[in-house]
Structures are given as C-alpha cells and as structure tokens.
C-alpha cells in the first residue's frame, strides 16, 4: 500500500503542479528546520530551502516509489547543506582569511536583522555554527547533524553514503579539532 506522500510524489512526477505544491507545503517546515542548522543567515536559509525543493523538482523523474519520499527529500536537503559548507569554504578562502580566535567571541552575536525567537538560543546556535564553519566542510556537516540535530553516526553514514567505521573516525577527528577550537575561544 502506498503512503499519501508516495501517491502525491507519483502525481508530481507525472507533472501535476498541484501535487508538487502540496508536497512543498507538507515538507517545507521540516526541511527548513533541518537546513537552519547549516545556514549562517536567514537569507542563506531561504536560498538553501529553495535549492532543495528545486533539486527535488529536477530529481523527481529519478525517484522510485520503493523509496520513502521524506527520506529521499531529507537526503537532498543534507546534501544541499553540505554543498553550502563547501561553497562557503571556497568563498572564505578566496575572499578573506578565516577569522582569528579573538574574533570568534564577537562574531557569535546574532545579527540584529535576523528574525528569531529566543535570543539566548540564537546566540548559542550562532556560536556553535561559527565554530563548525572552521572545520572541513564534510566534518562540519557531520557534526552539524550529530550535535545540533541529534542524529546518530550510523544514520549520518547512511545519509552521506559513508561507511560507519569511516564516519566514526571522521567524527572522532572532527570533535577533537572542535574541542581545540572551542577551548581556544572560551576563557577558562
């Protein structure tokens, strides 16, 4: 028996715009929450969510009903987030040097124009994101999902097509590096 998502996705695959819009309406909140963990700003978040759904539209011909639609879309979103980290890394490398440890404390202040709820939560999220942004893009994506979304390493390995052993090793190294970064910016 096919899920409502699957039948909607089948209709969208056949070119039904109404079904496509319904899929967007049903999934955009979850995708937005997930990609907010990756995005540096609200404008970036809008771009990432839009990019995810545009990739969904382009990829629908390849989607198979045997695949749960929500998982398939979630994979697109995590790949979009990882690509965003990679682009940012390249842009940062060419545009300006990475901020020094001293800059980190001031950079963690949330922007005044950013809409949001709890300012303390926003400030904490900014601080964590700022630290993660200084890791290699794949490491940052891994720890973003692990620390901020609470995903297990096994789930992350499955999501990115890595082996579990490689993922654990990568996580171990990334956390060690993150620890050093955190200690360097945090007064003891």
């Amino acid at each position: 028996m096919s899920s409502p998502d699957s039948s909607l996705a089948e209709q969208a695959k056949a070119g039904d715009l109404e079904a496509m819009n319904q899929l967007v309406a049903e999934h955009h909140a979850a995708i937005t929450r997930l990609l907010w963990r990756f995005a540096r700003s609200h404008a970036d978040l809008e771009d990432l969510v839009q990019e995810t759904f545009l990739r969904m539209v382009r990829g629908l011909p390849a989607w198979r009903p045997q695949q749960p639609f929500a998982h398939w879309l979630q994979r697109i979103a995590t790949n979009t987030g990882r690509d965003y980290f990679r682009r940012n890394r390249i842009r940062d490398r060419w545009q300006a040097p990475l901020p020094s440890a001293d800059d980190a404390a001031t950079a963690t202040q949330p922007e005044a124009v950013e809409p949001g709820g709890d300012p303390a939560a926003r400030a904490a999220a900014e601080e964590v994101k700022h630290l993660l942004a200084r890791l290699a893009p794949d490491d940052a994506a891994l720890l973003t999902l692990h620390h901020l979304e609470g995903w297990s390493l096994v789930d992350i390995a499955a999501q990115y097509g890595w082996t579990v052993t490689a993922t654990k090793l990568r996580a171990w190294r990334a956390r060690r590096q993150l620890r050093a970064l955190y200690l360097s910016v945090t007064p003891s």
Partner: protein
Amino acid sequence: MNTPPDPGDSRWDDLLARARKDQPAPLDLAALQRSVSLEARRLASARRAEAPDWTALLPFRSLVSSCLAGTCAFTLIASWQVWQWWQVMPWAQWVVASSGGAP
C-alpha cells in the same frame, strides 16, 4: 578507539542544549511554491522542446529526397551488377538461345 569527550566541559553541553532550541523564522511558503512551479514548468517546456529539435535535425523534405536518391543509386548499381553477372552465368546461353536474342 575511545571517542574524545565533547569540547570543553559542561559549558559545551549547555551551549549545545541552548543551540538546539534555536528555531528559524517561518519562510514565505507561497514564494517557495511559486519558484517550484516555475521550475517545473520550465523543465516541462524544455522536455517538450526536445522533440521539435530532432525533427529540425531531420526535416521531412530532406528525408524523402535522400531516400529517393539512395533508392535510385542502389537500383542503378544493382542493375549494373546483375547485368555483369548475367553474362557469365552458365545458363545464360540457354536463355539467349530459347528467347532468340539477348536477355
């Protein structure tokens, strides 16, 4: 292999706990749906445009005239070959004799 503890100490755990509570502001769903619909329409029209491109590559008139020219050339060469081989066939003389002339 031991996993190193999370960075720092309990402050890091507190930081993460607070960071997880951070929620994004809602996005403009209508604008998102508009961009998705636009992309879907663009893709659909691009797919439809592929078929006329193929017919442009092989226009009907050129196709017919090419086939006619090919058929004529094939018939000409085949007839000449048949005429060449006909004369050396062992039974050609019998046909010539019975028909009273050239085949």
